[in-house]
């Protein structure tokens, strides 16, 4: 076979997105591409302690990364889901778990039986009492899932909470070992081909010129290539997701290192709490139309639990995405392609989705339109589905205690979400996708956790007698509880499995 000359890939920006892309390309397509990464020490990276989704495990595995080594290096903790406080009403609390309700095996969804018992007035526990992931989280335990699918202790998944400023260097070491070239320098110009409009090279402050065939824009919010040089328009979603600022401030961990992330609703947004091994990350995501940066900062400082480890830092952004993520010979990966607030920990997932699509659609020279179009179709779908899921959190609320909550409660929502909501209200049905980041249990957790109460239920759930059903649920709850009790505490597990170097 004819050996094709490798594609010269230039990665612009060395944060999480840049190094994940560089490492993946060199690991998976070593003969197809050379990778040059340009980054500048002068420019900080956005990463503020990252909560992730379980998909990242697949990414690490594909790159042959040892889990314990990675967790120790990034001072990571385990994450079983997100604990949402004060969203439906002040005082409400629910977990969005990485796992099923019930065993997740029946032809009829577990929550349908649960709804049926509710509808006939039977005594029934909160739904989270029937979820392995929720119960491990509530009791502050952790162990790896059991391999046997019949074991109740196999019915959950997990992700990590880690220090994103340490993940990039961890991947950098790998990528460099795999042959990625790193150039230190600030980009001052981007050279376009006068005829084709494609990008030819990036020019650094020291006048170095780095040529390439394919440019990965992982320059973060700056969006140097796809935004500034190629001027791809940005679709603004702020009418649905009005939060446009975050103030972040890490602190010492005073309470337990929870195996979950917290998302606590505030007057004009929400606050994250992400426990790592060495500290806890905090931040207040808020809408500048409803609260000033000063007031938000004060509210955050007031709310954090331990001594502050740094000054509060403000981040400014806008919800939305570039109309296309792959334009000409430039592919945006990460924040340069769009921004969705970290409410459901999707930032790294979106980076990973772009990398997966890029590897599957890795181009030849010249780049085929069909590769570009398919990439954009796949990425649009990811963004759009996450968007709807995020809007749901704001819109499905009974809060009327501040202008912010009044706005999001009463705003118009996309039709695609309105249909999903109505369908759930009718009979607890979730629009099923076989592919897509958030599966059924995620939607169910948020709907029910935020008081979207179905009027009816699946007719099949009426078949067993109420007594038998209630007994079965009690048994299940007992099994879950016993399995959780056998697990070590989260902190014990961390110190045994992946202690960070001190």
């Amino acid at each position: 076979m004819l050996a094709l000359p490798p594609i010269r890939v230039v990665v612009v920006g060395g944060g999480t997105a840049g190094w994940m892309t560089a490492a993946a390309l060199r690991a998976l397509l070593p003969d197809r591409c050379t990778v040059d990464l340009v980054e500048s020490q002068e420019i900080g990276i956005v990463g503020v302690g990252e909560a992730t989704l379980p998909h990242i495990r697949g990414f690490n595995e594909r790159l042959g990364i040892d889990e314990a080594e990675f967790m120790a290096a990034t001072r990571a903790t385990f994450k079983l889901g997100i604990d949402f406080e004060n969203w439906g009403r002040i005082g409400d609390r629910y977990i969005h778990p990485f796992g099923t309700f019930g065993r997740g095996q029946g032809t009829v969804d577990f929550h349908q039986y649960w709804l049926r018992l509710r509808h006939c007035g039977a005594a029934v526990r909160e739904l989270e009492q029937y979820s392995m992931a929720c119960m491990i989280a509530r009791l502050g335990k952790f162990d790896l899932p059991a391999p046997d699918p019949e074991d109740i202790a196999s019915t959950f998944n997990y992700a990590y909470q880690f220090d994103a400023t340490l993940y990039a260097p961890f991947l950098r070491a790998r990528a460099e070992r795999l042959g990625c070239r790193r150039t230190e320098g600030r980009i001052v110009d981007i050279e376009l081909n006068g005829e084709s409009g494609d990008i030819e090279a990036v020019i650094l402050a020291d006048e170095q010129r780095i040529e390439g065939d394919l440019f990965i824009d992982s320059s973060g919010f700056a969006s140097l290539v796809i935004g500034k040089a190629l001027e791809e328009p940005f679709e603004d979603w702020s009418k649905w997701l009005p939060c446009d600022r975050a103030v972040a401030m890490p602190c010492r961990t005073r309470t337990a290192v929870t195996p979950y992330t917290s998302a606590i609703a505030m007057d004009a947004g929400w606050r994250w709490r992400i426990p790592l091994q060495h500290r806890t990350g905090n931040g207040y995501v808020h809408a500048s139309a409803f609260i000033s940066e000063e007031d938000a900062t004060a509210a955050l400082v007031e709310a954090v639990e331990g001594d502050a480890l740094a000054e509060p830092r403000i981040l400014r952004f806008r919800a939305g995405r570039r109309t296309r993520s792959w334009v000409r010979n430039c592919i945006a990966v990460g924040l340069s392609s769009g921004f969705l607030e970290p409410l459901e920990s999707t930032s790294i997932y979106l980076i990973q989705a772009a990398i997966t699509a890029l590897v599957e659609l890795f181009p030849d020279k010249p780049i085929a339109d069909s590769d570009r179009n398919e990439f954009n179709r796949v990425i649009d779908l990811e963004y759009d589905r996450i968007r709807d899921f995020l809007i749901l959190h704001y819109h499905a609320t009974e809060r009327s205690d501040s202008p912010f909550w009044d706005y999001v409660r009463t705003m118009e929502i996309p039709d695609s979400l309105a249909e999903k909501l109505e369908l759930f209200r009718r009979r607890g049905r979730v629009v099923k996708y076989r592919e897509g980041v958030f599966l059924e249990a995620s939607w169910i957790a948020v709907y029910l956790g935020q008081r979207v109460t179905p009027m009816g239920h699946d007719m099949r759930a009426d078949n067993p007698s109420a007594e038998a059903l209630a007994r079965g649920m009690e048994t299940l709850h007992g099994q879950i509880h016993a399995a959780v009790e056998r697990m070590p505490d989260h902190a014990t597990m961390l110190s045994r499995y992946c202690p960070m170097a001190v």
Partner: protein
Amino acid sequence: MESKVIRSVAIAGGGIVGWSAAAALKRRLPSLSVSVIAVPPPADALADGVVCTLPSIVDFHRDLGLSEADTVLRAGSGYRLGTRFEGWSAPDYVHAYGSYGTQLGSAAFHQYWVRAAKTGAAIPFDHYSAAAMLAREDRFAPPEAVARAGLGAIGYGLHINRPRYREMMRAFALHLGASEVAGPISGVRLSDGSIETVQAGKRDVSADLYVDASGPSAQLRSRLDEDWEDWSEWLPHDRVHFAQSQSPAEPSLLDRAVAFPGGWWWQAATPGGTYCGIAYSSHRLTEADAARVLTEQAGVTAVEPAVAIRQGRWSRPWLGNCVAIGDAAVAAEPLEWTNLHLAHGAIDRIVSMMPDRDFSAVELWDYNRQVGAEADRVRDFLALHHSTASGKQAAALPPSLEHTLRQFRERGRLPFFEEETFSRDSWLAVLLGQSVIPSRVDPLTDALAPSETEAAMVQLRETIATFVDRLPRYPDYLQQLGQKAA
């Protein structure tokens, strides 16, 4: 809430589709009162007329708690593993139900095969499928035995003996408590855009929900609106003949679908006899031409008169208190045997999505979206066979098929669609069987040298061949099965 629960269902149509719906509803929603207006299926109802079914029928039986003693032995069914496509592309190829190839590296198996094909070194793709090789050799093994041998998944459909199968399903539905009302349907009374009663024989039948399984005329559903999506631009065949043949005398796991200019004909050798048929376009062939093809090529002696079909589907099969299923909802030529499968898909969804008597728009929308997407991808799969057969001129394609073909031709990628009937391996079997070869090789194949993958592929073929050789011939297997049961 309680007061709006659906209590009764009337099913119009006493064919396989109607009785299957009755059995599924009574079995899985036993509180419903179910009556069947037992009008015999018309000749143009393909879901009732075609003997070949897909593996989904086995799942349907399992969900109903029907054993193979009931559905195979007592109902006179046979097994089928796939279809041999002759004259579509050279050489002939087999689309069987199961995995093609095995995991070799980080790229999909077919990408390594494509790489080999580009150097002219590839053995036909179906030689890497245990199901296809079992079918070619007419030897049978249950899926568990194939899995134990490390040869991946296989699935089988059934050749049904239509009268016996229908009677089995009818007896089962009646046993579960469904009731039977004699036809014919002499009238349908509407009120306010919904069905109020159906006049069956001398009786009026009323129910909360009406299931129209009356065949292509959709005697109930057609009264509510006429919003039909026509597929003839992509699937122009509008005539079908059924026939029987004396040969081959022995049943076979592998059916034949043979292309000829103007259409295609089929042959299915089942335990109850050999069934044939032909589908073609009346613009290109007369009935006499079609009958001649069947007698000359398929050895048929008597051909039944043509039935007319118009391929397409209702935009909204469920409207108000009436849902159409089977041929009343969607018409597709029997290529790939999807007719009863689509009816089962509809029945399963009616059971799992049963709304209230107010038939809320959003619930019906979700039902119609799902069955619509499923039917449209079946349409795409059928159009794929015709549009990529050798000697075919480029014709217009449905946009979703065009997308699939463009991605596949470029680099062997199969984009994902919701509600897909056929697995990726099924799509690959037909695409690669019909010599649609991607122009580029997946770069992920680089990590394994061609010599390595070649060795692995040789080994897979040998393992399959050794496994297949040890198995009983299918007619012997059937005989043993009968003896064991007796």
